[in-house]
């Protein structure tokens, strides 16, 4: 899957978690703009992991601050 296809899938997955209908750019942050708490992060990460059949460990999550970081990370991980 190329980066833009990954982006499209994640955009659909994020919808139920984007309670405030924040418009999503590559620079949108999860903690700041989307106000995700730790429980939301866990459920959202689980949804992505199941969709792409990958693991995003906590160590990797620590590096992911923005939506763009996430798409990049998933794009790299699913290619492996």
């Amino acid at each position, binding site marked *: 899957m190329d980066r833009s296809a990954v982006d499209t899938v994640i955009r659909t997955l994020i919808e139920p978690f984007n309670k405030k209908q924040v418009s999503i750019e590559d620079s949108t942050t999860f903690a700041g703009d989307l106000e995700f708490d730790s429980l939301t992060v866990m459920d959202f990460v689980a949804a992505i*992991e199941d969709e792409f059949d990958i693991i995003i460990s906590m*160590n990797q999550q620590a590096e992911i601050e923005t939506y763009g970081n996430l798409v990049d990370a998933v794009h790299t991980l699913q290619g492996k």
Partner: protein
Amino acid sequence: MTDTTNQAPDLFDKFDGIIHTRTELLAGGVEDPFNLVMERVISPTRAICNGRETILLGTYNYMGMTFDPDVIEAGKQALENFGSGTTGSRVLNGTYRGHRDCEDALREFYGMDHAMVFSTGYQANLGIISTIAGKGDYIVLDIDSHASIWDGCALGNAEVVPFKHNDIEAMDKRLGRIPAGAGKLVVLEGVYSMLGDIAPLKEMIAVAKKHGAMVLVDEAHSMGFIGEHGRGVAEAQGVLDDVDFVIGTFSKSVGTVGGFCVSNHPKFEIMRLVCRPYVFTASLPPSVVATAATSIRKLMQGGAKRAHLWENSQRLHGGLTKLGFTLGTTEPQSAIVAVIMPDLERGAAMWEALLKEGLYVNLARPPATPANMTLLRCSLCAEHSTEEVETILGMFERAGKAVSII
């Protein structure tokens, strides 16, 4: 005039949020739930707190061993014969006869080959988890794990992969996605202390083994009480033989302080040299290991007390349910009964109303709690009498009505 342009920020600024929440709570006039002083302790179930005689229902002193005459006597003797402290690490001058004897008591208690005593249960988790799971290994753990487990993960270099609480399928999927050749450690707890629920260890351990993972189970809240010999939830579910490492503490049923890991792993003893939270800290005082060893051996004979503790747990759980409180579990699963509060304000008000009635329970609040709940956690003791549990229910009824929670 001081130049403020290159002044670094106050490192305490990051705590402003929590300082604010606390100030607001106390401004409401409630007694500080996190600053209670026990002026005198009368027994495992009674103390004078803030000037009032109080029934203790939040101590984790499940088996009431803190005032056991044999335990006290063992501590006194060790204090007299071996002094007040070891002033040294277990691997230098800090292993006395009593430390060895305490480890023997643990091996007898669990029927396992190896036992290693740490200065606290927190350090046991910190040490074992961070040491056995290294770079390139994977730790798969329940999202509701105790802080000491999370800190053990943070101290080490393994990849950390959490799954939803007690979700067998979520755990299975994550284990299945770990790259071939990587080491795997699954970390579970027998009893989860926030809601008092237990883990389906039988199913979870079977899944872990299917994926070739090693399994560590923290049985802090089940030792002495759950399972035929009080070995914990893994024993009760018949899977203790499949657990590679049991972590436990002396600060609950055993009634003193300290932590441990027991294991049948043939190479386990090497931990004593490579586990930094074991090596780089002083060992427990002689009196502490003497009280622990005596208490552990007495717990092996604790069948009657265990039965009464179950009765207490069922009576409290049933009574609170009948009064209309919302509890953490629909059935009593452990000696912890968690009462779910609508919010922190009313939780704190209820906590204070109970204290004024003469009852101490634990107030637990986010972020330590799952799903950001505010909880009044009650932990029963085998020394609570049936009448005391009825008294406690009366206190909950009056306080609950006064605060309009029921």
